[in-house]
């Protein structure tokens, strides 16, 4: 960086100053006129300097070195009078909190080598400017904040901590980081009495180094922080991202698979890209896509049936952010739900549970109601071994740890009640949008009698009659309970003709699919980095092992909801779940975040915290770093050298 020059003198002063160097040269030549001194004889003097003549070069140099030093001295003084200065930054304050964004978008390479490295470089530059009494702490944040370095005045610790920050593939959340910073900014906190006795600590400066790819902070409590936003990255960045990727079986032909992907163009220019589909790491299909500026488009691949495979989609064209150019989808054989049905004999129900499709979806165990009294039932119900439990005209004492379907009975849970049985209730409405009621056609269904239901808060009525709801579903902790306000068999008489209608097995299939955990599985097939994934695994053990894409292994224990909750999803890619040696599940972690993929910086380079708008700034406090002191010090050093050489006559 070139210095800026400022004149400290007027023109006539400069004129006088400009005469100094020629005057020095003139005086030097005058000084060369040596004073004559008569001595008895120059005989010995000539002999004395004879051998010094070999050093005549040094003698001449010594003669001129004093002149050169004097000229250098004057030059330094003149330069100092020009008051050279450099544009620099200066930290104002004595307590600093550096917030460094290491989310996925900070891996963008529109700033070389990457935005994160640029942010670290800027933080390190500020650390170098800290005075010895200043303290600072470092927080890195993506979707969650991480305290990298507590308050310290040790610059070496700060340097090492900042250097240790690594990029993540997670989304960005600033509010958590600000909350952590606010908590650490005044660690004492203190009561009012302490506050009156002790001097209040200086307000810490919060410096946010980020590309701003996060929503504005609405928490006004955080707007009290002295915050500076230093935007990293530019607006001209261009990026293509996979925003969705899914593999499904064709409805008409279950043996064929279809892979769909959506590609978005986060750039101001039209973009073309080649898309590759990889099966177990090998390219099996490719396509081209042409996207308008800020446009999006889809690609579709047809695949043969694959029992189990890793599918990966890649945007082969390079752009500024590589993290969102890949997406994964595991292809697993569908997991069969575990269902326990307790009935004293209900042929239509049992038939519906034993259709070919039902057997694909679920593994159904039928037990008589007396089974409820056994210790085995109590153990299994409490252990969450089943995904769905069907109680046909029977009820246990306690609710099981599973989804339930109650036929002609009320669950022993608070909030459920039924009115007196009414004869021939007329069906007036169905909740067709609910997954349980999809494709369920109830037009010809008649009910002989039914008890209108009252359900706990949050329940949804699936079948409404003129007397009240006859089929309801209500959430219970992590489970859902479906209650039928009528009996299918009804003792001697058939309570309804629904089991004889085609819609009944369809409803049972919906039930098995929805409450058997398949819907949940489908949702958990793809999660975002950092999210918790809840896994349902058909395994007898209470522990599984999750292997990350990079090979890291984590043991996960079964929780009370019969699932395995895994939080270590920081990495994108395919995760494999092992029960012992057996691969039991796979799931994908994909970015799929438009906010992270749109790496163009904020239009106004400002962020909003509460009601406060924090303008982006290039640094803490731009100041001119003046260099005249250093030049005067150098001039003083030259003067000392000249004095020494003159007095000691070093070279002669």
């Amino acid at each position: 960086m070139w210095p800026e020059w400022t004149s400290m003198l007027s023109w006539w002063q400069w004129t006088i100053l400009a005469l100094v160097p020629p005057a020095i040269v003139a005086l030097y030549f005058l000084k060369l006129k040596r004073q004559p001194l008569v001595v008895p004889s120059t005989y010995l003097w000539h002999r004395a300097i004879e051998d010094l003549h070999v050093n005549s070069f040094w003698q001449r140099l010594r003669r001129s070195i004093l002149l050169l030093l004097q000229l250098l001295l004057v030059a330094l003084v003149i330069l100092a009078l020009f008051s050279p200065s450099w544009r620099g930054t200066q930290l104002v304050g004595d307590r600093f909190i550096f917030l460094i964004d290491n989310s996925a978008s900070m891996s963008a390479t529109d700033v070389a080598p990457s935005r994160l490295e640029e942010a670290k470089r800027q933080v390190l530059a500020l650390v170098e400017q800290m005075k010895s009494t200043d303290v600072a702490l470092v927080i890195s944040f993506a979707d969650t904040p991480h305290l990298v370095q507590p308050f310290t005045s040790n610059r070496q610790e700060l340097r090492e901590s900042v250097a240790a920050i690594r990029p993540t593939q997670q989304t960005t959340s600033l509010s958590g980081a600000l909350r952590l910073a606010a908590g650490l900014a005044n660690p004492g906190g203190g009561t009012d009495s302490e506050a009156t006795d002790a001097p209040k600590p200086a307000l810490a400066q919060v410096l946010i180094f980020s590309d701003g790819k996060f929503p504005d902070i609405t928490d006004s409590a955080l707007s009290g922080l002295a915050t500076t936003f230093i935007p990293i990255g530019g607006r001209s960045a261009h990026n293509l991202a996979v925003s969705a990727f899914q593999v499904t079986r064709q409805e008409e032909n279950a043996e064929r698979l279809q892979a769909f992907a959506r590609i978005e163009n986060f750039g101001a220019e039209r973009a073309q890209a080649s898309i590759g589909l990889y099966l177990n790491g090998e390219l099996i299909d490719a396509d081209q896509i042409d996207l308008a500026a800020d446009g999006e488009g889809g690609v579709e691949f047809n695949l043969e049936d694959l029992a189990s495979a890793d599918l990966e989609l890649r945007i082969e064209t390079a752009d500024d952010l590589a993290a969102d150019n890949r997406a994964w989808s595991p292809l697993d054989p569908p997991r069969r739900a575990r269902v326990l049905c307790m009935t004293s004999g209900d042929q239509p129900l049992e038939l519906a549970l034993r259709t070919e499709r039902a057997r694909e979806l679920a593994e159904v165990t039928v037990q008589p109601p007396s089974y409820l009294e056994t210790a085995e039932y109590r153990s299994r119900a409490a252990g969450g071994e089943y995904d769905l439990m069907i109680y046909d005209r029977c009820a246990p004492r306690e609710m099981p740890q599973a989804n339930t379907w109650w036929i002609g009975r009320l669950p022993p849970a608070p909030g459920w009640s039924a009115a007196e049985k009414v004869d021939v209730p007329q069906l007036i409405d169905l909740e067709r949008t609910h997954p349980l009621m999809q494709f369920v056609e109830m037009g010809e269904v008649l009910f002989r009698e039914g008890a209108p239901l009252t359900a706990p808060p949050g329940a949804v009525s699936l079948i409404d009659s003129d007397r009240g709801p006859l089929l309801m579903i209500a959430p219970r902790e992590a489970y859902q309970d479906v209650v039928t306000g009528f009996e299918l068999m009804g003792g001697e008489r058939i309570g309804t003709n629904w089991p004889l209608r085609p819609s009944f097995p369809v409803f049972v299939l919906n039930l098995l699919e929805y409450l058997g955990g398949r819907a949940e599985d489908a949702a958990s097939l793809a999660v975002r980095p950092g999210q918790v994934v809840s896994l349902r695994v058909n395994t007898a053990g209470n522990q599984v092992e999750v292997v990350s894409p990079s090979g890291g292994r984590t043991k996960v224990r079964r929780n009370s909801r019969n699932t395995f909750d895994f939080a270590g999803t920081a990495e994108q890619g395919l995760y494999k779940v092992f029960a012992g040696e057996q691969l039991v599940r796979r799931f994908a972690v994909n970015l799929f975040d438009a906010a992270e993929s749109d790496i163009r910086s904020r239009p106004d380079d400002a962020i909003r915290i509460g009601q406060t708008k924090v303008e982006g700034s290039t640094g803490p406090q731009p100041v001119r770093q003046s260099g005249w002191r250093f030049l005067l010090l150098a001039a003083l050093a030259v003067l000392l050298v000249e004095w020494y050489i003159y007095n000691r006559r070093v070279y002669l």
Partner: protein
Amino acid sequence: MSSASPVDPSAELSLLSPEFLARLEQLELVTRKIFRGRMKGERRSKRKGQSVEFADFRNYVAGDDLRFIDWNTYARLDRMFLKMFLEEEDLHFYMLLDTSASMDFGAPSKLDYAKRVAAALGFIGLTHSDRIRVETFSQPAGQRGPVWRGRASLWRLLDYLNKLEPGGATDLATGVRNFCLRNPGKGILVIVSDLLDKAGYERALRLLVAQQMDVYVIQILAAEELKPDLKGDLQLVDSEDDDRAELTISAPLLKRYEQTLAAFVAGVRDYCTRRGMTHLLASTEQPFEQLITGYLRQRGLVR
């Protein structure tokens, strides 16, 4: 010629104090060589001759005077020895002074110092009836210096010395050659000079070797020559030939000068010693009386 010139009695005080003269009276000039004077003097000559004081024996060779054969020894040893006697004779004492311009330095000046040495030695010689001749290097070849004998000539000697003025360049070789041409005889020669001749002192001293004189070289240097107190950028001008040397005086140069001077003096002393001459370095700061009664006595010129 000097004996005819009027004498200035005050000159005595400028060169020699009466107290010092009293001390000098007790001294006499001696020589390590056997000289033959032209007149009988009161000094016992090392020349063995016809005298009353026995000196030595030597083998008889054909042609010797038979009168000096020691017959007693012949009777005992059956060999003939010649009996030798010391002959009393006068001493020729020469002083050759350097009056070049370079001698006009120091406090007192080197020439003044040289004059005092000459006056003191001359007085010693005159008190013992020696023949005293004082000459200078710049004296023309055909012009001999005055000769004095006897105490009464002291005033003339002093007057002569007082009238010597510094000037001209040092030319040791020419001065010595002229001196040798004028004074072919033997005797004691005391050269008083700074020896700062750019042509070198060696040739001049070599001429004296053939002269077979008992030579004493008293080299006089001023204090500012022995330890120059010079500073800064100077143009040194030679007082004799106007030669100039541009110097920036520095500590290393001063050290180098002192080394050169020491080497020069050591060279002169070595040269003289090898040729049977006696060299003595005198500083003008050194008390003149100490030089005569101390150093010259130690070196055997006076006793």
